[in-house]
């Protein structure tokens, strides 16, 4: 059965996009979102992040930052990341505004805060479809290296879920096996559309 996946982090830039890119490459049906109020990217100092609205094309951010300080943003990996992102999709999307994108089967979050926001958001939506959605959280640190690791783990788990006839029946086993194999803690919840 073909599942619809959603990768969610806070800004829909690094972790979710890394996973989106990877899952897409592997031929899975995947979308990605951020739960933050804005898209935040590192700025010249800790207190001055570059803030964009969701929906601002990655390309635009790329051009903007390259104009501002190509050296800095190249060094901290922002420009390469944005470039990668722009090849995956047009612009960051916000989870809370994705009702139009239809229902997902698996929502993968990379931070507990994000997980809670997704679960709460799903909770507050109308449960009209009576369709289960699995929300899984895997804590991944927000840097390039960890994001790559997290994406691979996400891919593995998603492929496993895809491989089962109905994850509802075996989710506990899958999660337990995954935790045991990778020594990473997973948190999951089941919500309804």
């Amino acid at each position, binding site marked *: 059965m073909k599942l619809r996946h959603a990768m969610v982090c806070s800004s829909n830039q690094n972790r979710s996009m890394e996973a989106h890119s990877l899952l897409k490459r592997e031929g899975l049906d995947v979308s990605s979102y951020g739960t933050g109020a804005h898209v935040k990217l590192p700025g010249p100092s800790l207190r001055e992040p570059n803030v964009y609205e969701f929906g601002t094309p990655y390309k635009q951010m790329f051009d903007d930052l390259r104009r501002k300080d190509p050296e800095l943003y190249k060094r*901290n990996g922002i420009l390469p990341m944005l470039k990668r992102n722009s090849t995956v999709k047009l612009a960051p999307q916000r989870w809370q505004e994705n009702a139009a994108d239809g229902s997902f089967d698996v929502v993968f979050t990379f931070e507990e805060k994000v997980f809670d926001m997704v679960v*709460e958001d799903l909770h507050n939506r109308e449960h009209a479809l*009576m369709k289960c959605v699995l929300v899984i959280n895997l804590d991944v640190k927000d840097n390039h290296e960890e994001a790559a690791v997290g994406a691979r783990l996400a891919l593995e788990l998603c492929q496993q879920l895809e491989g089962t006839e109905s994850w509802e029946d075996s989710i506990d086993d899958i999660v337990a096996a995954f935790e045991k194999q990778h020594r990473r803690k997973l948190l999951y919840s*089941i919500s309804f559309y």
Partner: protein
Amino acid sequence: MVGRMGIGSREKAASLLHSAKFAMDIPSKLEHLHQLKEFLLQRDPSLLPEFVPQLLEFQNDRFSPVRKFLAGMIDQLGMEHIEFLPEMVPVLIAFLKDTAPAVARQAITSGTDLFCRTLEKVAIQGLCSSELDSSLESSWDSMLKFKDIVYPIAFQTGNDGIRLLGVKFVEAMILLYTPDPDGPSEPPPYQAYEGNVVGFNMSWLRGGHPMLNIGDLSIEASRSLGLLLGQLRFPTVKSLSNAIIIVLINSLSAIAKKRPAFYGRILPVLLGLDLSSSVIKGVRFCGAHHALKNAFVSCLKCTHPGAAPWRDRLVGALREMKAGVSAEQTVCEVGKFNGIVEDGAGEAYSIEERKPSMESLDDVHIETGKKRSAQEISDLVQDDGLSTKRVRPTPIVSQSSTKDSNAVQDNLPSTGSTASAGDGDSGPVQQLLAMFGALVAQGEKAAGSLEILISSISADLLAEVVMANMCYLPATRPKAEGDDESMLNTGYITSTVGSNTQGIQPSSFVSNVFSLSSAFPQIARLLSAQPSTSRDADKSQRGNEHQAVVATDTAAVSSSINDLTEAVRPTEVVVSTSAVVPSKMEDCSAIPPEAHDMGNFESGIPGLDSSVYTDGLLETLDTSRLSSADIQGTNQEEVTSLDSSPLNFPSTGSTPVDRSEELNPNSTTHTTATSVHLSSQYVLPKMSAPVVDLDDEQKDYLQKSAFLHIIEAYKQVKVAGGTHVRFSLLACLGMEYPLELDPWKLLQKHILSDYLNHEGHELTLRVLFRLFGEAEQDRDFFSSTTATSVYETFLLTVAETLRDSFPASDKSLTRLLGEVPYLPKTAYKFLECLCCPGSNEKVDKELQSGDRVTQGLSTVWSLILLRPPIRDICLKIALQSAVHHLEEVRMKAIRLVANKLYPLSCIAQQIEDFANDMLLSVMNGPNVTEGVDAEGSIIEGPKDSDLENPPNELAVSNVTKEVASDSTCSSILDAQRCMSLYFALCTKKHSLFRRIFVIYKSLPKGVKQAVHRHIPILVRTMGSSSELLGIISDPPTGCENLLIQVLHTLTDGTIPSPELILTVRKLYESKLKDVEILIPILPSLSKDEVLSIFPQLINLPPDKFQAVLARILQGSSHFGPALTPAEVLIAIHGIDPERDGIPLKKVTDACNACFEQRQVFTQQVLARVLNQLVEQIPLPLLFMRTVLQAIGAFPALVDFIMEILSRLVNKQIWKYPKLWVGFLKCTALTKPHSFSVLLQLPAAQLENALNRTPALKAPLITHANQPNIRTSLPRSILVVLGIAQDSQSSSHTQMVQPQTTDTSNSGAEAVTEKNKESSTVS
């Protein structure tokens, strides 16, 4: 027309149905069904009655996706055309037991939809008319049947996926059957729900319904809820899967939230849910736990009055969970809920959001503090009789207050609602005002909420609130009430603080509150004290309220001008904290000294408390760290001084105040404004904050110059001590500054301008740790990457400067790299450049000096020792350096690796592997032709001495110079480069040596040469260890040359050990028949042994034989020579070329070799040898040759030779043709001495002799004619000589002569030639 179209569409539908039925694969089947469904629903619903039964036939389709599609289709059809339900629902019911879970799931989903829809329809129709039409009734009946079937699914074990939906169905049903308190309680007009019904509410049916009895329905709902709850009760819950538990919890919390009436039933179960006992796997625990927590939080958020009573228990449960699982999760959770985190531990997490409020609080510190210190110094001085009455009980309170700080959470929403309820009149300001009042009235629990409220309200709004509250302020200062009774009654004696401060001065209390507010429990405590008083004394309540509001007022005002003062904030913070303590002390002093109990004085000082408390926050707080760190410093200082003399405070407090005034006139103005405002209520409304707008550049300039100022100040401040705290401050400051102002560069400049005197190391470490903390702690992508890059640059700049400006022997660099939090990649590159100059950058020529390499290597060494995680990388650097192309670098590195690193067991293997690889690379590398490398030869010259330097010994350098060939082949250099390390390791671990033997055979020529250069040093270092003996006793094939060199080295200049001799001898006997290997140990062999191998020795090439000769004669100092020179010569003569299979030439060569050494083979030796040889029978082949040589070499031997010759005559020498020739040669050579010998020959032989050498004849005749001789000669001789019969004899001899020349063989000729040679030489 219509009819035709109807027919047309009917046909179309029929054909779709047909193709759907007979399609072979799933996708096309689904596609046709989909089209059919669309067609029926959208185009021609009139066909439905005809087609529904046919569609339902698909329920037996063999493909489960088709059945699932049918279930979905039933949903859609049923929603639009409810009348078909009686027909379709049985199919759904059948599907519930379908083999494919997906079908069953879809069936429940569809059923749930239809159930809701039907119920709504029934309900609404019943509202409009007293009769329901029968089709609707039967539809409802069928749905009820469906419900009855689904129910067991929800409560029985089975397929989890289906069960989840079953639970969801029950949830939906419960919600439908019970009235929604939030929904519209009256139904909309009938027409409105022809389309979609939005928000159906059971309460619509209160008026009565022909079919549905609202009471019955709620009973059923209640019963269902009971069933759901039963699932979560012990022991049922144990059998549930995690997924089910999560869904149950979610469902129940959703029900609780939407139907608060059920709180009382649901929450006890949820609260009593003991997941830890019900769950075996850690996994389950986590997910369900989280769900439960979320459920609690969402329940907590519910504002319905019905939920209110449960708050305390929920909060309690959440706190317990926090204790049970991980604190952070819950705290985050709770923090999210309230928008801000309120308890102590929580601060760590919400610090970012809180920054603004913290700042404002800080500002208040300053202002109030300053004011107080200025104003009340006199009081303080007077009142050193400290009132401890108030202070003493504080510990008790703080205990309870920390506990309560958690409980506070729930107060915000509830009091919020109460406030608005009680004071429902006007705008947000009034509401807020009321809320503040309510909070204050609530007592201690509200303290936290109050704090949150203050910090979460926007500054302007807060200011508004304060303004609005002004009118409540009493016109005169309230009198001190000092009611001791109330103090005693409350049990919290701290309450006196409330009443007392009230009596003294409201503003002082305010300052007190805010001085404490950096640590929450304290403010909570103080605030909580107030209400407790207020309960007792009604009158004071209002006053208290005012104070609280005044407090917030100050915060508001200061936060509104926060922007303005931000530029100087850092300095201000320093000021504020030092001022805090005095302000508190005033408080103490202001209280009438009622009791003089000094008991717990120190612990009772709020300032001290807060300092201890802030300790915990130090790690995480950003802004507040500045202040708290200083609080720590100053407080401790001042608290101690307090005991002796409180007079100190004003002075300590005032100094920083001055400075801040210098820096920022604005803040000063503002300060006075505030102080006026605080000291008298009447001035308050007039207060206005002067606002100066700075443009960005000015701001930047201010910030930058402030920072520079601070840094400058550090140069002086060093003397004052306490630098470690200050350094942390500086690092934090750098963190806070915008990057474009480049605080780091400024800091670097400061550090590097005088690294030692500015404690550059310490400061650098602080900065780096701070940056590291920022990068690590912050999960936030942006800040961490920036911090990381700043970290790298900073570290590298400092490191480079240290390298460039300090002598190589300086240890600062090593120390720095050893102590920083971590080393980035660039740091490794840096080290690499240092250790392997030229490999990365050609630029730094200057760096190539050996000292720098040593510095780099010793740094690497210490890193390997000190930082195990990066050991591998550092080791790699060292190893790269150990194969560096520059001799000097390489040797240094090898010395480090072999002597220091290799003994470390953890990395020994790695080193070995690397050395091994390098060694093998030499073998596999291209066999470089012997082209002379110009560059190589240049290096070669100075290299030699160093090259042979083994890592740990210096003595042997010159020994192998001779070995070093003139070849400058680059392959040798390269081979040396790669092999040196391995050789060095061999000296440490002898067993490694074998490998060299093993690969020796396959080495290219140049490399072999390199090996030979190395070997002597190596072997000498190793000595004849057992490993080496092992190798010698069983050498790999093809390594003979190497082996011999090793043996030579081993025996060179020393006496070989018996073991060695034994080993070599065994080897010779067993495996390697090459006599050459015996050469080194020849001196130690016994005479017999030497003699037994003598022929083979003779057979060696001349140069080798020379060596052999030397060794044999040299012998060992203990046993003397193996053979004496005489014995050697005799042995040589004892060799029979034919028997021993040795060419005669070899033997003669050997003889020649002996004769060349005249010092050894003296004439005495020769005489002795000849004496012995002449006795041998038969005579040795070369005997005459030797005699000839002897006479050639030592003419003085001539008499002795004559004796020999005459003995030969006796031995009838003429019988040995070869020797005879030699004999004659000899006589010819030794004439006239030989005449007497000749005359001893028998006549025939004499004639023969004379015929052969006619030149002899005449002198001989002359000699014989001497009268005394002639008489002694027999006649026959005389005849031969022609003295007796002239003619006859002479003609005879003439006739014979040519014959003899003919017969003389080649051997004799050779001897002759040789003879001539030697005679000419002599």
